[in-house]
């Protein structure tokens, strides 16, 4: 009884998380590529309710940070002026969900800038970059999973349903793909492309590559389901009534693979988000100045960043709720379609 509710709970959590990233323009206070060259590696600012003299403020505020004289990256709070945090502030223009032009931001400050999660080496707002970077990484994960599942379902069904030499051929190709060193494949592929790749091209390349290499595993799962389903009585009956292959696949077999595909989707999306991050981390993803979770983390390849600026690790934390959400969803889905339930169902059917 609790399973559907659990499933719905995870789904709502995930929808909310994705909503925040999709509406990055609203939640992010600034343009993610805007450089504030006076404030490189600024640590996260603290939001206060209590000021330096011990007075309580109703509206949260922060103290602007100023560079300590003669230093490059050491800041101190300037407690002389408290800057109130303002909500629903009108600032930099952006397009909500990519098409609705808007000026409204969840929060901001007038006169000075607020960096809740600090800035990077060019003084770009880390919070905005994480939110916008999530758009790239999550979309790559979702699209990649879509491509993979589509290919996997198609090939798995063909192999399982038709059997014989077609099954053998497709499954051997699948094994080949499983054994492929896809990272090197991508390096090679990148070398063939023109020198300057626009951000969109780079993004599509990443999606296509991670979508192409992952189809083998879902294809094998789908094939297994199809192999068992096609021998079931209702399929045989339909065939006896003269149903065509396409009709059988669409009407009777495909619906039976749905639960496997859904569970696979919930597992594959975070896996592909991670794949995108790996590629961007190695400089094969979207180019600067665009951000993605992978190229945000790429800054950590430098030793000095690793030991000096802890807030550069934050993009790694951003993925945690998403992964938990997806894995929770996957396990809820799995429980819903656990094997003993299938048996329960089939025991009722007269055999």
């Amino acid at each position, binding site marked *: 009884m609790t399973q559907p509710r659990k499933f719905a709970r995870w789904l709502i959590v995930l929808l909310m998380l994705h909503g925040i990233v999709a509406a990055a323009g609203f939640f992010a206070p600034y343009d993610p590529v805007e450089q504030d060259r006076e404030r490189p590696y600024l640590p996260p600012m603290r939001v206060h309710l209590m000021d330096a003299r011990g007075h309580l403020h109703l509206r949260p505020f922060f103290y602007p940070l100023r560079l300590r004289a003669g230093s*490059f990256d050491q800041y101190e709070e300037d407690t002389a002026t408290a800057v109130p945090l303002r909500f629903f502030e009108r600032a930099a223009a952006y397009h909500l969900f990519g098409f609705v032009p808007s000026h409204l931001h969840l929060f901001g400050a007038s006169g000075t800038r607020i960096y809740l999660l600090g800035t990077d080496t060019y003084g770009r707002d880390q919070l905005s970059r994480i939110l916008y970077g999530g758009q790239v990484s999550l979309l790559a994960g979702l699209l990649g999973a879509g491509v993979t599942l589509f290919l996997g379902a198609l090939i798995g069904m063909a192999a399982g349903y038709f059997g014989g030499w077609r099954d053998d051929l497709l499954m051997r190709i699948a094994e080949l793909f499983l054994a492929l060193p896809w990272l090197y494949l991508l390096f090679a592929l990148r070398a063939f492309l023109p020198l300057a790749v*626009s951000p969109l091209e780079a993004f599509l390349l990443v999606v296509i590559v991670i979508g192409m290499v992952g189809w083998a595993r879902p294809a094998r799962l789908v094939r297994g389901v199809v192999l068992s389903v096609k021998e079931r009585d209702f399929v045989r009956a339909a065939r006896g009534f003269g149903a065509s292959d396409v009709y059988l696949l669409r009407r009777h077999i495909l619906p039976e693979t749905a639960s496997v595909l859904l569970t696979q989707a919930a597992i594959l999306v975070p896996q592909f988000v991670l794949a995108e991050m790996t590629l961007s981390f190695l400089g094969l993803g979207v180019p600067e100045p665009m951000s993605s979770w992978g190229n945000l983390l790429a800054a950590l390849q430098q030793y000095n960043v690793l030991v000096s600026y802890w807030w550069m690790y934050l993009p790694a934390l951003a993925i945690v709720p998403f992964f938990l959400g997806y894995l929770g969803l996957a396990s809820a889905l799995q429980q819903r379609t656990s094997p003993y339930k299938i048996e329960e169902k089939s025991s009722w059917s007269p055999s």
Partner: protein
Amino acid sequence: MKNERLSSWRCRSSLSLLLACTALIALHAKGAPPPQQTNAKEELLSLPGEIGRSGGRLVISLRAEPKTLNPLTAADAPSREVIGAMQADLVHINRATQLTEPALAKSWKISADGLQYTLTLRQGLRFSDGHPLDADDVLFTFHVYLDENIHAPQRDLLIVGGKPITVRKVDAQTLVCQFAKPYGVEERLFDGLAILPRHLLEKPYQEGKLGQLWTLSTPPNEWAGLGPFRLKEYVAGQKLVLERNPYYWKTDAKGNRLPYLDELVFLFVPSADAQVLRFQSGETDIITRLGAENFSVLGRQQRGYTMTDAGPGLEYNFLFFNLNDLGEKSSADLTRKQKWFRDVRFRQAISAAIDRDAIVRLVYQGRGSALWGPVTPGNHRWLDASIPHPPRSVERARTLLKQAGFSWSAGANGESTLMDSDRKPVEFSVLTSSSNADRTKMATLIQDDLKQLGMHVQVVPLEFRSLIDRVTQTKEYDACILGLASFDADPNSDINVWLSSGGTHLWNPSQPHPATAWEAEIDRLMEQQLATPGYDQRKKLYDRVQEILAENQPMIFLASPDILVGAKNSIANFHPSVLEPYALWNVEQFYFRNSAENASR
């Protein structure tokens, strides 16, 4: 107290052991015992500076394994650094004063017409294997450097007015060099020309094997040099160990033979970050070629070492456009873009729009200087101070672009796009080396600067070798950011960059005829200064070259990093310079202050 005595005893005993060992080796090799005390017949060079104590082993890391120990073929920085500690030249440029001083030649005289140089060698010097040095070795050295089949990188410097210099032996200690034309470089020419041992190399030279000789795995007894250290051991992929040359020809002010150190070890540590970790953990004693970020990391947690900012170096970083005339091979896209690149106002506009101060602050953390010409503030002798330093001005850039026929169109998002006279958007890509984080950062800053002019710039990090291939061979690129570091402060060390026929004339290399009037003018000035003796005259000519470069902006000069080094506090006589090799130029004078440290290692 007890401890101290113990360690000093241990030190003395190890020292005497070492002396015995070296004596044994030398006896075995040559029969003549190595002179520990100075000999009356030897004309040694006495150096001022702190009197040190003998012993100890200095460890330093190299970014890559040296390719060779052969000074005739060495072109990479690690090889040059190692060879610098193993070889010596006739006349040497003091890295601290940037002036020449006597080395193997105790004196030299230049004839009144500037065509004849008479050099007198020091008497009684020996190679590191004990074999005596004489004028025949020098003759042999010049002969092989000038041999076309050897392809020595220094050969170009020895060709004056189209003719190689001729060297003649007067007696065992005296040589005369004859030039076809007066030579502006004067005696600086001899710096870096390692004098080679004829007794070891003549036979392989005649067999045509000299170019392949002296690899890292050469047995130490087949190798000899005149530098402070000699070859001891090479472990592939790990380290190169040099030992003290007992025949070295320099002494300290008290007459003790240098060098003080017993051993000099080069570790091969492939990444800059790994070098920092090794230095931090005390495994290496000196670190050079540091980036500003790692310099500040090390500076923040100083433990027994001191970090030094030696000031602006000679490296200059710049942006340049593809100005090659590719004829029919050129793609339509590149031809269209080259119409902008060839317009001097376009290049001036880009120069005006670049925020050099931000580059110095964000890329070098303030440890560098903004540049408007190729000569950095570190090279005060040759810097043309009259070159203007216009501050960043997007306004001026816009005016220049307008004059050149560009216009702006408002895009859908409210941002304007720069259009050329054919109403095509201005977009180009900038190559940077993916292994150089500094230059990639510069590119990202410039990308943002130029966005304010409505230009869409893409940054393409490329592996260094394929980048150089694109720039000098296939010439398929729009723009590129590179850096060059001169060996010497003298303008002639970069002559191949400025001559239109030069191979490193990056924006349009190896031209048969200068493509533009100003390139022809630079050619003329550079050749004239090469043949003009006297600093003042040459300075005037080179100033003019710098002015022409600043005006025409074939390279848009960006910034120059400071030379940043670190060394353990126990190392004395450590005076880093802004010339290569930044730290080891006076390695013969280095010593460890506390003997306990030597003994423990």
